[in-house]
């Protein structure tokens, strides 16, 4: 059986985390939710993750720092950043660092889906993949 695509959600805001988890699951993916970036980095299931959706402003490690850490670890994961407090400098900084999307909360489902799909292979994007 093909393994389902796993998407990690990292947001310290419980409401946003729960909502995203439900949406990601309704799209046919497996969702893994984390309260902070450190928890994802520590997780042993990290290698199964195909895409990360992370908040920018979090206590401790920010979403951009998380992305940089993943890159530095030699096992980068395509990352979508979301923020309730957008600013042009952090957006540019994030995109230069290789983040695939920088979305402002509240964001549309279409935008999020486009970001997710642009980073997954066709089989993965459909929800199942290797």
């Amino acid at each position, binding site marked *: 059986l093909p393994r389902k695509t796993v998407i990690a959600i990292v947001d310290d805001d419980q*409401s*946003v985390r729960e*909502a995203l988890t*439900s*949406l990601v699951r*309704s799209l046919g993916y497996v969702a893994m939710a984390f309260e902070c970036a450190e928890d994802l980095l520590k997780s042993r299931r990290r290698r199964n993750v195909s895409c990360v959706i992370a908040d920018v402003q979090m206590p401790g490690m920010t979403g951009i720092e998380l992305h940089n850490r993943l890159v530095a670890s030699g096992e980068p994961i395509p990352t979508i950043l979301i923020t*309730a*407090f957008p600013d042009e400098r952090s957006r540019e900084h994030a995109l230069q660092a290789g983040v695939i999307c920088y979305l402002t909360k*509240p964001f549309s489902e279409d935008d999020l889906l486009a970001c997710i799909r642009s980073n997954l292979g066709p089989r993965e994007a459909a929800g199942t993949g290797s």
Partner: protein
Amino acid sequence: LQQAQADLERLNRVMLLGEMTASIAHEVNQPIAAVVTNANAGLRWLGAQQPNRDEVRQALGRIVRDGTRAGEVIGRIRALIKKVPPRRELLDINQAIREVIGLTQTETQRNAVRLQSRFADGLPLVSADRVQVQQVMINLIINAIEAMAGANDGPRELTVVSGIQDANNVVVEVRDTGPGLDPKQFDRLFQSFYTTKPDGIGMGLAISRSIAEAHGGRLSASPNNPRGAVFRFTLPIDEKFKATPELSRP
């Protein structure tokens, strides 16, 4: 120098509304984002080949919770405004408006807006918090400028009028010649989060109306003739100055 410092302090307090608006945006954006995402998820669960009622129910439950949370943030802000008791002083409303017009001059010029003021002479004094009244005025004037700047054609005339409303109230009107407002919008204009601006968050008029009401006054909107919108801001006349013999209507 003392005067300059006082002016600066006043300007800072007026600008505080702007900063407050930014932090409100942050705090209410989280639950709003969650509501939107939950609604999307709910629709997906509902539209699945085998709709998942349990997931839909949970998503709806979270929408109720998060929507309530957003409302509570606004409630706290309203309470905050009420808690700061208006620092009432006897206020010459014309003088207060003149200062605001001075503060917004750059904006009017930058947007090629022609500003006219028509002040009634000898208006009775009102007992009001100068800064809060000026915050409302700034908000109305900036709104009017933005409404007109958004429209490509037509005149850009901003008229600020002061006068007597009735035996108990003075009134300030801010009239613009922008695209005007849909009559259906009038009721919703003053609700939190309602905005017609692409980058607005819909707090300015809600806060402004709270301020007007905390003073025992009113803030309302109506169409301007032949085009645009009129915002009317009334404030009660101080008891000592009531029953002035000559009443001039705007």
